[in-house]
């Protein structure tokens, strides 16, 4: 069921990414598939994050004028970095998601542009300006989207939060005992 939900959410994000630019150009600065990738990576499910990152990147690449595979690679690597960070540091706090989302946007953009420059196909827009717009748009809209995703995928995240709370409570209760 959770895989189906993820597939549906991924599909919606890709459709939004492919169609919103025709409505209003600035909407293209919001990277919806990246937000989904970040969300899944934050759930500490490595395989799902990597597969979703690769798929999302490749599908968007196939419709873009850039190199096919560059977006797939950048999103996969971004997903892995976030997953790795999430296993080392607790990133469950909603406030912490904002810098994580911003950092993911920057890392994804840099890897994407790096590959294009390396393979002699530099993007046709200024890097810093475009990355800044992307950072602002994806972070602002992505934060709201992450909340919505939390609501959609509520079961797993609620369970995880419960476990985290129980662990914290257990630590607190066992702390004084140890001292004794």
């Amino acid at each position, binding site marked *: 069921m959770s895989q189906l939900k993820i597939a549906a959410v991924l599909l919606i994000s890709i459709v939004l990414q492919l169609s919103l630019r025709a409505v209003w150009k600035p909407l293209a600065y919001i990277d919806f598939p990246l937000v989904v990738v970040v969300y899944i990576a934050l759930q500490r499910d490595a395989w799902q994050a990597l597969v979703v990152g690769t798929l999302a990147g490749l599908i968007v690449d196939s419709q*873009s004028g850039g190199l096919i595979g560059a977006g797939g690679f950048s999103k996969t690597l971004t997903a892995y970095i976030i997953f790795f960070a999430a296993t080392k540091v607790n990133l469950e706090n909603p406030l912490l998601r904002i810098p994580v989302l911003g950092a993911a946007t920057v890392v994804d953009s840099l890897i994407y542009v790096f590959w294009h420059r390396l393979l002699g196909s530099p993007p046709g*827009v200024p890097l810093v300006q475009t990355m800044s717009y992307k950072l602002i748009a994806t972070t602002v809209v992505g934060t709201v989207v992450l909340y919505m995703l939390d609501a959609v995928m509520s079961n797993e995240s609620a369970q995880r939060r419960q476990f985290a709370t129980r662990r914290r409570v257990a630590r607190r209760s066992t702390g004084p005992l140890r001292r004794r």
Partner: protein
Amino acid sequence: MAVDARDAGGEQKVLRIWTQTFASPLQSASSKVSGATGGFFQQIWNFRGTAQENEQLKERLAKAELELNAARQATAENERLKGLLNLHEQTNIQSIPARVIARDPSVWFNTITIDRGSSAGVTVNMPVVTGTGVVGRVITVSPWASQVMLITDEKAGAGAVVGQLGQSGALGSVRGRADLGVGVIEMRYVSGLEQVEVGDNVMTTGQDGIYPPGLNIGKVVDVKKGTATQAHQILIQPGAQLDHLEEVAVLLYHPPQRSTPQQNSPNTERSR
């Protein structure tokens, strides 16, 4: 009336005049007051139906506005399609009308997707134009859609001339530049000795083997004059409105084949 009957044209008429003179202001005032009062009550009476009428009128206005917008859009579309037809008459090249169905989903590149593909006869490198100028060239073809690289892309070069082809020697090539954005393209390699002014038209030369000669590219919007040893730096505003593309035409243009130079260098074996 009896007095009046007795003396039709005499003093009785004077009496009537005097009476009317004094009575008429009063009559006029009373008439106004009664009219206003009647109107006031009539308005109150009508007020019950006004709200409903207002709603009906609002609905009709909204419908009329929608129809007006649709008519405006149809007129604009008609103009664009007329431009494409004129283009066909001017160039004598067969073309396929196409609609822009998508734009590049990433913000890093300037491509569009059109709803005509190989099933309609579109092949890679075919030029795409509007009635007002060059749009770009086809870079990927699928059966029912094609991807078009806009002329503002850094990799989308085209041979160009400032002024009329055959009359001007200001030859060069145009291409996009990342720092300029979508609105402007750069023309390079134009000799600093050539006369180039802001507002001059820029046309294709056909030397690139992609675009046919004589297509409008745009207008010169900025020139940094060169010297005898330095080329002009020319910025061009594309003729086609690349931010608002809706209908385009793919030119079924096959550039003339160029003969490959024979390699007769001493150390090369001749192919039999």
